[in-house]
């Protein structure tokens, strides 16, 4: 029983990583109704930028703020340059666009900073949290920041004019235009916000998984899975999904025989898909009623 509880706790702490990523995924989904496969790479690139700023002598929090600001602007820029021209293209073509972006960012990061693993600092320290061996202060900090972002997003969407406009633009673009909302810029804004959230996720994750150009691949998949599990329309669901995925992954690795590190990913995905078969809109998502 104690092993079980320990695995749950360990799952929650790794789950914080996925929850963070899942928030960025849901953010972009709210804005553009698609999943952006390059999101992890954008987060990785932002994290490298913050690392570079620190290498040049800037203190952690200054680098943090500058990177978030840069990521926000970069997200908007990428949307305007690459994806606005593709907005009328079929969905599959847009997906190919995401793949192109992935390739460009991954390769550029590899060239600029090479593929050796780098250490990344944490502002929270790595002492055991409240004496527990399983959650370090960093992981607790990670969970805290994720919850703070979630709260911030909630307030943004529920209580601000821009948040209301964004929700409207994502929900019914044509009706949104008919009340005067520039839906095109709402999409750009969504991209900017998703990029900023992704940057925070990357900065929090890097101390744990170490900084290198391929650091986000596994995280992104789990982030997608978590977002889908929680329900793509629910930021709250994304965070819960993240923690659940972390727990699934740990339990699968511990209790299913023959599952080494390599098979954890497909098993976790299989579990998530079984949930989806039962609850197709995810745990907290809105049930979609399709009209013919």
């Amino acid at each position, binding site marked *: 029983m104690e092993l079980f509880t320990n695995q749950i706790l360990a799952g929650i702490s790794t789950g914080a990583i996925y929850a963070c990523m899942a928030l960025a995924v849901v953010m972009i989904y709210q804005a553009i109704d698609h999943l952006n496969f390059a999101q992890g790479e954008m987060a990785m690139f932002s994290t490298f930028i913050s690392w570079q700023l620190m290498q040049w002598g800037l203190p952690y929090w200054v680098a943090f703020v500058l990177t978030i600001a840069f990521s926000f602007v970069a997200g908007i820029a990428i949307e305007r340059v690459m994806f606005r021209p593709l907005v009328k293209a079929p969905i*599959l073509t847009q997906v190919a666009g995401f793949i192109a972006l992935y390739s*460009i960012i991954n390769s550029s990061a590899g060239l600029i900073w090479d593929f050796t693993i780098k250490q990344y600092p944490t502002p929270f320290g790595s002492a055991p949290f409240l004496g527990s061996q399983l959650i370090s202060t960093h992981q607790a900090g990670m969970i805290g920041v994720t919850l703070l972002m979630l709260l911030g997003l909630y307030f943004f969407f529920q209580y601000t004019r821009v948040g209301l406009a964004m929700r409207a633009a994502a929900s019914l673009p044509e009706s949104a235009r008919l009340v005067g909302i520039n839906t095109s810029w709402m999409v750009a804004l969504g991209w900017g916000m998703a990029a900023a959230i992704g940057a925070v996720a990357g900065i929090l994750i890097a101390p744990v998984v170490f900084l290198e150009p391929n650091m986000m691949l596994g995280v992104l998949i789990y982030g997608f899975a978590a977002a*889908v599990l929680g329900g793509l329309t629910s930021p709250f669901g994304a965070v819960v999904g993240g923690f659940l995925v972390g727990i699934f992954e740990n339990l699968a690795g511990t209790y299913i025989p023959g599952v080494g590190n390599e098979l954890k990913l497909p098993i976790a995905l*299989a579990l998530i898909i079984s949930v989806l078969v039962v609850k197709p809109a995810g745990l907290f998502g809105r049930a979609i009623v399709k009209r013919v």
Partner: protein
Amino acid sequence: MSTALEQVVTDAPAVEAVPKRAMTLGSGTSLVVLGLLILAPLVVKNFIIFQLTMLLIYGLAVLALNILTGGSGQFSLGQSAFYAVGAYTSAILMETYNVNYVLTLPISGILCFGFGFLFGLPALRLSGVYLALATFALATAMPQLLKLNFLEPWTGGVQGLVVTKPDAPFGLPMSQDMWLYYFTLVITIAIYIASVNLLRSRSGRAFMAIRDNEIAASAMGVDVALYKTLAFGVSAGITGVAGSLGAIVVQFVAPDSYTITLAIQLFLGMVVGGVGWLPGSIVGAAFIIFVPNMAESVSKGLSGAVFGVLLFIVIYLVPHGARQVAIFCQQTVAKYRKR
């Protein structure tokens, strides 16, 4: 936060329809292409013949994906798994059980058909991004499954298996590469013709009804479950045959040759060729074989970035893939004819 209120959605089909008469090339163009394909190996070196054979093989795999996505509207990022099963089936049958390589193809096709059909069953309840995730899981699992210890006696584990390259039969005076090229060409043409006929048949219409509007199709009496799983099966079967041919031509199978990267490349091949446009499959295959090489020759360190930029330029100029180019040519020719 949002409550569990229902959200009513009127979906436009995610995959656009290719009109029936545009499904293949005109007979004139087809003959020209066929002629080129038959004559090409006679004038080039063995290595180029090898590349052309791989072109046909990847073209087959993209064709299979086109039937699944362009035909029945189901997304799949998992084709690499079926390709791998086909490849390993041929490899194991040839090396461990001494089965003639020609025989391994139908066996592989049928096995993969079954595998695809079975995978299609639980996938029935998934669509769109959810199905993509499920097929993605399959694709990432496959290399790991192939490395599993207890399968090693058959699969050769991480190192994989070496496959013997067959000679031309009946003592024909051609190199192994050339023989394999023509062998592959015949199979490719056969499958292509069969696929076109499939899409034009009643089953094909059922696929497309499902793709365009699943609910309406089911209301009209189309057995959605049967046709969706059938589409998966057919697609997997063809991909399996492609995988088998790949194993024979490359002379080697190993788990890390069949990763998610292959699945993504096949997906890109489908988009570049034109989703649902079967003749485009070979254009897509050419893109995924030759453009990465071009990118690497431009810049070794930034090859991924160059590839990404080239890919983006292509989809920006022709969002509907090679089909768009073909339509443009067709319209230009028609304009000249009118004069």
